[in-house]
């Protein structure tokens, strides 16, 4: 299969969906810039023009409501937030209305199929208000779907699935992923929402990871294989709905679980998965579950503090070894250097 970069896969999924469904439009700050949300909306802008891809004033809440109102009239709007953090301004429309629309009108007012894309920033001094990752908050609310594609194939597939779904869907994209390459199907095929991906099968320890932490976990698993540790890696892909079955069957097989997410621990995705294992796979567990999350403070800017703030491949690998009662001293070598070039 040919390879595409993550941003190219997002773009291809969007363009193919827009070709097939004239009700789709894209808006949000900077969507029609030459830079096009890390390149992901450039081709859609070129192909479909300002009628269907257009910039938005800085009005996150009303624009989300506008997308809802357009969706109620049969459109399929995609709204893009260049950073997750700005989505807080849109929570009234997104959570108080979009998430509840179908339910609270008894199904009689139809659906509002709004797709919200939001980018998670990391490193290069993104700081406290440009680096947050809101999947735990959003997944709390019945009525929303929340997905985090990690691999290019799913960047395309989940874009297609979100644009086909009748439920409001949030796609969280980690900035660090845009340049990563991987095989991507040329066909127009959705990735099922609510289904995790077993990235690699293994027998000793299960790692359940989200978004960029899947990439870190792949590096960790590769290194651990050299140490004779067989890792089963599950890419969660969707937080709501949650694929309990894939997680539990893996945990029942390996008996050990490490969970890694791009956000914090308290009330977070990592805790949800840990609780799930404790409640439904307790008797299979051979060791305590380990949670890998951001350090419990706002994101700092200074390089020296960022290095301590973000968990990485070696953090995951050490946690895996800990569940096996082992230690290793050379794992620091596996961590990626932050090669992002600013300012954006």
């Amino acid at each position, binding site marked *: 299969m040919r390879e595409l970069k993550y941003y190219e896969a997002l773009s291809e999924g969007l363009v193919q969906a827009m070709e097939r469904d004239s009700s789709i*439009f894209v808006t949000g700050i900077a969507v029609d810039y030459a830079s096009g949300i890390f390149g992901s909306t450039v081709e859609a802008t070129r192909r479909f023009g300002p009628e269907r891809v257009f910039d938005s004033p800085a009005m996150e809440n009303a*624009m989300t409501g*506008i997308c*809802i109102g*357009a969706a*109620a009239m049969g*459109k399929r709007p995609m709204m893009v937030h260049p950073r997750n953090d700005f989505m807080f301004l849109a929570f009234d429309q997104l959570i108080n209305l979009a998430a509840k629309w*179908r339910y609270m*009108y008894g199904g009689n007012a139809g659906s509002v199929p709004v797709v919200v894309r939001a980018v998670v920033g990391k490193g290069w001094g993104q700081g406290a208000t440009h680096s947050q990752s809101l999947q735990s908050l959003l997944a709390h609310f019945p*009525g929303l779907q929340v997905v985090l594609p990690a691999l290019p194939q799913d960047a395309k597939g989940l874009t297609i699935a979100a644009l086909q779904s009748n439920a409001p869907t949030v796609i969280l994209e980690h900035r660090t992923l845009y340049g990563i390459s991987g095989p991507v199907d040329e066909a127009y095929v959705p990735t099922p929402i609510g289904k995790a991906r077993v990235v690699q099968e293994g027998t000793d320890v299960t790692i359940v990871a989200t978004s960029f932490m899947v990439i870190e976990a792949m590096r960790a698993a590769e290194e651990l294989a050299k140490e004779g540790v067989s890792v089963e890696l599950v890419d969660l892909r969707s937080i709501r709905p949650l694929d309990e079955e894939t997680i539990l069957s893996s945990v029942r097989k390996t008996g050990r679980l490490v969970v890694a997410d791009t956000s914090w621990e308290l009330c977070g995705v990592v805790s949800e998965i840990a609780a799930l294992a404790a409640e439904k796979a307790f008797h299979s567990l051979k060791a305590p579950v380990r949670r890998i999350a951001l350090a419990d403070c706002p994101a700092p800017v200074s390089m020296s503090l960022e290095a301590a703030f973000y968990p990485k491949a070696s953090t995951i690998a050490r946690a895996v070894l800990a569940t096996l009662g082992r230690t290793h001293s050379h794992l620091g070598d596996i961590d990626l250097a932050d090669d992002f070039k600013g300012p954006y």
Partner: protein
Amino acid sequence: MGTVTPDVEIRLFKSVLRLRRAEESLAALYSEQEMRTPTHFGVGQEAVASGVCEALLPDDVVYSHHRCHNHYLAKGGSVAGLAAELYGRETGCANGRGGSVHLTAVDKGFVVSSAILGQTIAVATGSALAFQMDRSSRVAVTFFGEATCEEGVFYESMNYAALRKLPVLFVCENNLYSTESPLSTRQPTGTELCERARAFKVTAEKVDGNDTIAVFEAATRAVESIRAGNGPVFLECMTYRWREHVGPGFDHELGRTYRTKAELDKWIEHCPVKLAGERLQSRGIASEAQIARWTEEVESEIRVAVLTAKQAPWPEAQNLFDNIY
């Protein structure tokens, strides 16, 4: 459309009469504690809903807020669907899932109402965006109270609607109070909301919101301008809520002092239903007997609706999870 013919006057009167009788009947039954949903009765404010909706076409869409019964009924929603919703029954317009503040009658063009201030201002603006994209001549209307002009979403929406010349009508029902807070604690002295709208390049007009004809004529001018592609219009309708903010009581009977009985009495004198009825009679369009017959027809519709609602099935617990996605 647009001319105040005797037919229009009759429709306007029958509309405000229906809204009034429905709300009064429901308010009278509310104290039985069988409608277990916080309800914001719209008694006194009927002319805004009736006057604006009479100026619309069937496929124009309307959005509303927490005090939404008038708009739902004026756009064609059924009393049966409203009553059953208040009684929490499966036959309610939202199948008992929404309650008083979350009504819908999509087939009549009443899309939804919502309880959070200002939400549907943006949503109506979005429906207007869809109409513009489709090069349709449909208009989207959003009703909201003057307290919503204190919310940011109002300004975001107005700015965008003006920017893109969207076919949306913003109808502000200025009833002078937000819950128990008077204008004096919320907006600077001398505030004219129309000036705020004009600052956003939105055409604005202020009318007597208790005068069905004045509202109808202003709404007609607005809708014609919007359909001509001139962009959004803001209509401020001065009116007054007779009953308490939420619930069927009267503030003066409940010991509340944030407004006076004398003020209420002044507005009751300026009752939209009375004004419309007197006008019909003085112009010889309808007799007192005719009005009595219409009143009985409306009362009959409401009696049947309430009776049917009370006998309707409850939603089944096994259907708790229906329609989440």
